[in-house]
């Protein structure tokens, strides 16, 4: 395939779009390496002349910033980072494991595949603020409020439709004949799935796992209403910083935001060719 240059007007259009797309990312990274004096300078400083990592240090050692004469960071973000990793990883593993079993069931044995999409869709459409209300009540009765177990259960369940339908689309792509050949060789159905189906869709399994991780890592509202003091996640901590200081801790907040973005962008680029499939419940295959 011959790579050509774009015509000048198109190239300019593309460049403008690229600047618009990347500018907010540039800004948050720049803010994260600004020393406190540059945080909210007027006019705003685009590139800090004296970049520093003090904001990142402050996330884990709240007193570090005092060297610059800034108080007010009362909480370290260590718990939030730990909480985000713990909740996202375990919930992702659960969601993908259950999703994989269901995906094979639905794809190969066609159980309820007509009605299920609508039920799943209506689950996705229900405003999370309202579904959080019964959770708060139920959880407070069984002692799961403010616990990682509760948060993980919700995350796994909420992402289950995504993992099921994304994995189902990968199983659908696999010809049944391959499994049937294994069964003729004397393996049971279950063994055929374990030794043939699952290894053959491992690429899809990886993409799905990463996609579910993105969803869990990004979740905000359930964590917001179900965490008080025992648990925290990065999005909740970011909101807390903003509320507690009316947003004036620009640099520290930006550092936390950058920390939150990095794993997502890496994972996102890794599975970019499967993003459309994940987002559309497998309706769009690329």
């Amino acid at each position, binding site marked *: 395939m011959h790579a050509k240059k774009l015509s000048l007007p198109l190239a300019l259009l593309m460049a403008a779009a690229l600047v618009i*797309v990347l500018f907010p990312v540039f800004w948050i990274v720049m803010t994260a390496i600004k020393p406190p004096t540059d945080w909210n300078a007027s006019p705003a400083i685009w590139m800090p002349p004296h970049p520093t990592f003090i904001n990142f240090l402050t996330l884990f050692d709240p007193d570090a910033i005092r060297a610059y004469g800034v108080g007010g960071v009362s909480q370290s973000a260590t718990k939030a980072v730990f909480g985000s990793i713990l909740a996202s990883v375990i919930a992702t593993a659960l969601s993908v494991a259950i999703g994989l079993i269901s995906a094979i069931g639905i794809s190969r044995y066609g159980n309820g595949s007509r009605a299920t999409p609508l039920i799943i869709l209506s689950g996705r459409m229900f405003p999370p603020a309202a579904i959080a209300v019964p959770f708060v009540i139920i959880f407070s009765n069984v002692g799961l409020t403010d616990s990682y177990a509760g948060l993980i259960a919700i995350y796994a369940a909420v992402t289950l439709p995504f993992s099921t339908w994304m994995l189902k689309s990968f199983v659908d792509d696999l010809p049944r004949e391959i499994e049937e050949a294994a069964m003729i060789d004397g393996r049971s159905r279950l063994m055929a799935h374990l030794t043939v189906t699952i290894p053959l869709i491992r690429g899809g399994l990886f993409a799905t796992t990463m996609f579910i991780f993105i969803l869990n890592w990004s979740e905000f509202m359930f964590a917001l209403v179900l965490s008080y003091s025992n648990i925290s996640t990065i999005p909740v901590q970011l909101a807390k910083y903003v509320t507690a200081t009316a947003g004036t801790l620009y640099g520290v907040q930006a550092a936390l935001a950058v920390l939150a973005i990095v794993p997502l962008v890496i994972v996102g680029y890794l599975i970019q060719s499967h993003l459309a499939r994940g987002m559309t419940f497998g309706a769009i295959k690329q």
Partner: protein
Amino acid sequence: MHDLSTIEVTDAAPAVATSPRGASRKGIGISAMARFLTLPGQIVSVLVLVVPLLVALYMSFTDWSPTRGSLFDAQFVGFENYSELLIWDTRFVYAVIRTVLISVVCLSLEFVFGLGLAVLFLREFRGKSILFSAFLTPMMILPVVVGYTFWMLFQANGPINQIIELLVGPQGAPEWFRSAPFAVTAVVVTEVWHWTPLFFLILLSGLNSVPENPVRAAVILGASPRQVFWCVILPMLKPVIIVAFVIRSMEIIKLFDEVFMLTRGGPGSATETISLYIYKLAFSDFQLAYGAAAAFIVLLGSLLLIHLLLTPVRDQLLETNR
């Protein structure tokens, strides 16, 4: 890694597992297998989706709030919450109208920009794959961070106002979060920036799978590139376009994270979306039953909307989604 190791462990098992069954290599019957495989997912869905939904539904017919003790002691009030919301609660009605208007504006802009970009990416040029990744970046960033980032960009002394001052002078730079129209604009800009890549991605994969023969035929028959695009390619793209709109409407109806970080619904309630209003009802005013009723009205409305949207392409979707 993890899945590979489990597979190796089980790989040793078939000899043991199949021999007792002997000739009946089907092992477990098909219907038992179907039940066995779909059971875990169904249990989780029932526990974590259906049960809370039913609790919320019951609650929406009561006057319960946490100060009144157990949910079982709550007074049953029939459709009172619903009629109150739809007839008297102007704040709710405005939140619904506002969310719908913001959604329509955002989705239209996202569609136009996404389609434009996708068309640009149909041709081959140097650096295409790097640019493709770069254009997907926004949708990989978590909503809370997007909201916070744009909150910084839209500060009175922030970079966006600096650019505006450079272009039209200092009187042109607004205080974005102090006036209703500007605050709404900020929300729309944020949302469009965040989710245009999804339209781009879906539409590009749709465009790439448009069959070549009808396009070639149209070209041979003398159609101009514009005619080919509007009369041949776009109609074939319709199912994909509708999928994109359905997925995005489902998400934008719930718009919360970005607005929470940007404006908290302010100034006043100028940017208060449905989700934000329900959140405030439930978690600042503790009117949980009332909030649940609001949520069910929204659910019914969006189900109806999505049903209408999906009707023209249902058969095609069921075909791919079997």
